[in-house]
């Protein structure tokens, strides 16, 4: 059934990831996470390749990839900015923080800058409510953000 050599998509980068999990169907999410870490998004061909190797329907891989916010089918920027819009952050003014980032990067939430440097996304709570408003830049948690702090932050990078 499985055609191992039928790699359409840079098998060299995807295949080792799949092999790491012994091509187990139950490891689909872990595999997708690793691919996402590798490419910063889930390329269509990679998903199709994973489905073929794991012997699952492509639509199942697609369903998982669209179910979780952590996965994206669109290429993301090199730097990932998450602005927390949870209740605690919201009452402390995360809306203003988000608007400032949007103005600064000239993109809307969910978008990527044309040069592929930044991707801006919102999250609904990261469990650090006491530190709100929270902004996460490349997995670095930045607390008590204000519009002024945010603009300084983006200038430096």
């Amino acid at each position: 059934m499985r055609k191992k050599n039928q790699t359409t998509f840079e098998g060299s980068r995807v295949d080792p990831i799949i092999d790491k999990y012994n091509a187990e169907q139950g490891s689909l999410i872990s595999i997708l996470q690793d691919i996402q870490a590798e490419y910063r998004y889930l390329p269509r061909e990679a998903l199709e390749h994973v489905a073929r190797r794991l012997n699952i329907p492509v639509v199942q891989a697609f369903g998982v990839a669209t179910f979780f916010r952590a996965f994206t089918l669109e290429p993301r920027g090199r730097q990932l900015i998450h602005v927390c819009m949870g209740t605690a952050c919201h009452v402390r003014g995360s809306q203003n923080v988000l608007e400032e980032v949007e103005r600064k990067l000239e993109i809307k939430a969910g978008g990527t800058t044309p040069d592929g440097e930044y991707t801006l996304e919102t999250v609904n709570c990261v469990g650090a409510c006491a530190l709100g408003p929270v902004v996460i830049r490349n997995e670095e948690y930045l607390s008590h953000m204000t519009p002024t702090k945010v603009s300084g932050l983006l200038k430096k990078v």
Partner: protein
Amino acid sequence: MSEKNRSRGEMVTFMLNGARVQADPGSSLLEAIRFYGLDIPTLCYDEGLTPYGACRLCVVEVGSGKREKLVASCVHPVREGLEVRTHSNRVLKTRKMILELLIARCPGSKKLQDMASELELKEIKFRPLNDDCILCGLCVRMCEEQMAARAIGFAGRGRDRYITTPFDMTSEECRKCGACMYICPACELRCQGTGAETVLCSGCINTEPVCASRYDDAMCFMVPCLSCVRTPEDVK
């Protein structure tokens, strides 16, 4: 299936609307209830497919006292000593509410509108969405289990969940057999006669009374018939 075969022979006994009945262990409540001839409406159930428990129309009440709860009978196994009520006030009320929500989502479906007549639903209190899918998953299971194509599935989550092919593009696995459309309860459009714009169909030009399926050969001569019992004032 294998479990079903293994335990065949020994029957489990449970109470169905106060009557002591027996059923095959391993069968679902819905199968057992239907075996005894009781009418339970369903939308996401099909005998040839794995039960899914999505539409919730098959709700029944099990247990008694504080343990009393509503369960989807299509995915609830029969158990020794279970107390089941299929048409209690709470069940009927819940069932109507579920159908009301489904119709508000999908007012263009003939099957839903017919069911509304059958359950004597008089009013839809929700804003209609005019969607064309109730996410019952019948087409997904049909495609996978009967057609072995696995070309369609669910994507997204929560309110953004929808049924699609991979990457929303024409799927290579799809043989265009049409089984998904055949089994879909929402595809068939309701009559486009007078009142086609209303959320709840008035059933005015139904050629066949909706009760006909219940009384196989006999035609209903009650005036007014159930399918025409609604007056324009009822339909909002």
